[in-house]
């Protein structure tokens, strides 16, 4: 989620006084308020609405939502007569570029900051941390057209990047410039890097990393800007540019189009501000929402959301990226209708409940064991090799998690180590400790990954006979026949360890925990334990 700060003074100029009702409206439009200061309201923006990533974008929608304006806001562009040429020399990973011009802007320090913020936020959200694309702004006055977008060898690229004292190469930018280092991972493996060059051969920028300090720095005297977007996704890039320039238009600018000649020589005039059309059926709206709206209501609600509607067709603003299907418009209608205005219903539909078999077994086992004064525990299923294998004196291949952020990096393969760890953490608590837990365990055998539900139980200050009594009682209560066959186990004492058979099938292990294991868990009491595979037990019931 992205955060946008709304300047309250500027907002009030458009909406009138900021009241609790307005705050509620902002929130019910889909921008929950996270925090508020005397100057600002901080709102959360969901990823489907990148057009909300600026104050202008939110205001634009809020004004129709609260009824100060109505329907589609029209944006138009004039022809600039300029060209952008996208050349075949580009790295294949970065094939597209689009650009246009905005004139008549009046920048001050605040506005420059704001524009940079929108650019950054579009880059980090819609354009996926610039992996999908990057946006750049340049003072128009320095540029000679046509501008070319070309690929160059990293060592041949040479310009002074933004806020850097001197000219360096493309490769050096990725190594030395702070922004270069931040985004180097996107393009450091490419043999060529993309650059914008103007007619006089001046390097303007190296997208999606950084602009030239000389060619690509906006200041307070800038009134006309060249705006470009480059990257990997033909559609999303155009949308990102549309969001950027409509925001600049809302700041008072006039949009001028540029003919962008793509690698395949196809000329695309940018920006494309023509509203997209989509059909909507009032019947579908009512069916999905459970309402009885008329066409005129549908029209009213769509207009509240910044669309136009006429005869079953919706004109969707060009800055919206999230309308893929009729349901997206139906949601807009629901938002305009107001989620708070829906009367909840419980349908009169009869269905029969059903409890999962394994849950039934788990609950019955818990009931039996609680009757024997046992305490149920609840532990993480992600563990460490240390706890799972080393302290248990066993060797197993565990399922490893890539790039886990904590020390817990492996999936547990058995339940017993979890219980031993709990005993270890409760050394100072009154004994005896009688605990059990039912949980998922994860195993890897010959590259085959399996999940099982296991039950483990430990008794401290206890012995084989006592833990066997518990298991036999449990089996008896589940109407199962339990038998034991002597075996050995790395974590248990030899001669006091047995395989557990239920109705002739091997389902687990029982025994006294070996003192070397007890010591490694820093315990000073004898422990007896068993562990059963419940999926196998379930099949026998």
């Amino acid at each position, binding site marked *: 989620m992205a955060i946008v700060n709304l300047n309250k003074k500027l907002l009030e100029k458009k909406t009138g006084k900021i009241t609790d009702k307005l705050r509620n409206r902002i*929130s019910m*439009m*889909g921008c*929950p308020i996270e925090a508020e200061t005397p100057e600002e309201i901080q709102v959360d923006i*969901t*990823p*489907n609405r990148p057009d909300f990533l600026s104050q202008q974008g939110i205001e634009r929608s809020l004004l129709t939502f609260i009824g100060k304006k109505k329907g589609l806001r029209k944006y138009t562009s004039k022809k600039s007569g300029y060209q952008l040429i996208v050349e075949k020399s580009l790295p294949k990973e970065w094939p597209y570029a689009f650009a246009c011009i905005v004139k008549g802007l009046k920048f001050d320090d605040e506005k420059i900051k704001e524009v940079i913020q929108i650019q950054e936020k579009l880059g980090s959200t819609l354009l*996926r941390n610039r992996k999908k694309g990057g946006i750049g702004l340049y003072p128009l006055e320095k540029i000679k057209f046509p501008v070319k977008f070309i690929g160059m060898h990293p060592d041949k690229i040479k310009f002074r990047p933004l806020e850097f004292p001197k000219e360096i190469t493309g490769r050096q930018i990725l190594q030395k410039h702070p922004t270069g280092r931040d985004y180097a991972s996107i393009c450091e493996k490419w043999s060529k890097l993309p650059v914008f060059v103007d007619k006089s051969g001046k390097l303007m920028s190296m997208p999606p990393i950084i602009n030239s300090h000389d060619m690509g720095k906006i200041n307070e005297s800038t009134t006309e800007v060249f705006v470009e977007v480059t990257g990997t996704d033909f*559609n999303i890039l155009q949308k990102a540019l549309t969001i950027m320039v409509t925001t600049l238009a809302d700041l008072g600018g006039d949009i001028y189009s540029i003919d962008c000649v793509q690698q395949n020589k196809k000329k695309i005039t940018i920006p494309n501000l023509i509203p997209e059309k989509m059909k909507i059926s009032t019947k579908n709206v009512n069916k*999905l*929402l*459970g*309402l009885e709206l008329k066409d005129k209501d549908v029209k009213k609600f769509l207009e509240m959301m910044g669309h136009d509607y006429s005869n079953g067709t919706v004109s969707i603003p060009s800055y919206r990226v999230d309308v*893929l*299907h*009729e*349901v*997206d418009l139906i949601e807009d209608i*629901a*938002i305009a209708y107001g*989620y*708070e205005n*829906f009367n*909840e*219903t*419980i*349908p009169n*539909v009869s*269905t029969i*409940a*059903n*409890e*999962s078999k*394994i*849950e039934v077994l788990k609950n019955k086992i818990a009931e039996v064991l*609680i*009757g*024997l004064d*046992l*305490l*149920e525990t*609840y532990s*993480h*299923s*992600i563990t460490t090799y240390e706890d799972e294998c080393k302290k248990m004196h066993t060797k197993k291949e565990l*399922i490893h*998690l*890539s*790039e*886990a*952020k*904590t020390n*817990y990096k492996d*999936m547990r393969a058995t339940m017993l180590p979890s219980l031993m760890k*709990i005993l270890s953490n*409760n050394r100072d*608590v009154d004994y005896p400790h009688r605990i059990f*837990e039912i949980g998922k365990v994860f195993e890897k055998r010959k590259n085959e*990954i399996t*999940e099982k539900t296991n039950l483990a139980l430990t008794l401290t200050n206890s012995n084989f006979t006592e833990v066997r009594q518990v298991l036999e009682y449990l089996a008896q209560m589940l109407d199962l026949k339990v038998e034991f066959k002597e075996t050995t186990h790395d974590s248990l004492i030899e001669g006091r360890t047995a395989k557990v058979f239920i109705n002739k099938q091997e389902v687990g292990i029982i025994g006294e925990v070996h003192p070397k294991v007890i010591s490694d868990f820093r315990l000073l009491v004898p422990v007896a334990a068993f562990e059963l595979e419940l999926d196998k037990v379930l099949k026998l019931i």
Partner: protein
Amino acid sequence: MEEVDKLISILSPIEREVLPHLSIGEESKIASESGMDVAKVKRALAYLDNKGVIKMRFEEKRMIVLGDNGHLYIKNELPERRLLIALSRKKQLSMQDAKKEAKLSDNEVSVALGTLKKKALMEFKQGKMTLNASNKEILKPFLEEIFLKSLPKPFSDLKPEEKLALENLKKRRDIVKVEEVKHSAYEITSLGKKLLKNLNKVKAYSKNTIEVLNSDMLKTGSWKGKEFRHYDIKTGAPKLHGGKRHFMNQSIQYARKIWMDMGFQEMEGDIINTAFWDFDSLFVPQDHPAREMQDTFFLKEKGKLPDKKLVQAVKAVHETGGKTGSKGWQYEWDEEKAKRLVLRTHTTVLSAKTLTNLKKSEWPAKFFTVGRNYRNETIDWKHSFEFNQTEGIVVDPNATFRDLLGYLKQFFTKMGYPQARFRPSYFPYTEPSIEIDVFHPIRKEWVELGGAGIFRPEVSEALLGEKVPILAWGPGFDRIMLEYYKIKDLREIYSNNINQLRNMKFWIK
């Protein structure tokens, strides 16, 4: 007098036993005189204190006690004594011989030597230790030896020469220790004095009353006509703790019951899933931030995709929207990315799988689960890499958005939150999407619980092959549970502090 009679009637046997010795005034002496063990005397005195018969005072006292080496030397003699004995036998010893003869370590021999020299019982002649003491001097016990044998002793009782011995011994390793000991003393209250004057009454009362009712009495009826000794109800009883389910599971059982009461069938399934089920089948685009390593646990291994038809349907909705009328995400869907294995990030995986197996003849159908999910997080008081969700879906040709709100409202009312609020939100797999807030009746604020919505056609039509609204939700569960048990820190769910588990209240709703 009535007060004393009442008191007599509730005295326990051990209190009665200790009473005749009460004027002795000191626990250990009462014990030795009465033959009761000290613990029993302590308990009796505590009871009497409770009843106002005596008033206990606790004071810290410095006690001199034997250290580990002290115990050893009491058994084996001090090193200087051992050296002196060796010298008395051989008259003259080299350093090496002394060690051997007196069985001393390097450290001990130098201490022993220094001590004997200081006491002028030995001197060096031609570089050898030579005895310089009469037989009488040899036999005379050292001050230190007498002192060690007298321990433990309170510091306040030490005589000047004992203090000197203490100073000498304290310089040596682990022979004596000074310990702060809690010492209790008591005085007899005026009520106690009255009681002591009536000891004969105490005796008489105990003779005529029954302490423990046993089978013999019941058989013979010998209890008839006798009075039972009264108990002091004010005295507390030691705590009990029984077996019980973990508090987390108690609340999960309750949530399961709510769904089943509403006619929902339970879903179950694996934690480890392919990205296909966790993301792709739910229309989460392959470049979605949630699919990155820093958010999701990935395994090295890859899994298998389900049957081709389903994979094709999912691929189609991602790329072009397929037959759903959607535009899709418009990118090239990569089968390999879908094969990656992940720890499920939401229980919605189970809903997706359930839908692919559901026949049209089984509509309307309702499913739920309460299950564990995972995200690659660090752990602190409000983050954990494991969390629980309560998931539900309703497949019903007539289901509406209003029904969705109705089911959720019902669930949260039963969970103790009758006031629920729904806000617009966004999830890639639902449209409309909602965020659920419930009003916390005590904290008087809205608590955010998670998401719900109606599955997008890109999800429901790809999985089910039919056009039908599917209501879906998956709000977090841990937060409601924490609120109920007044736990602030998420880590406590998994801490398994046995004391906490023993004392934690039950989930009652």
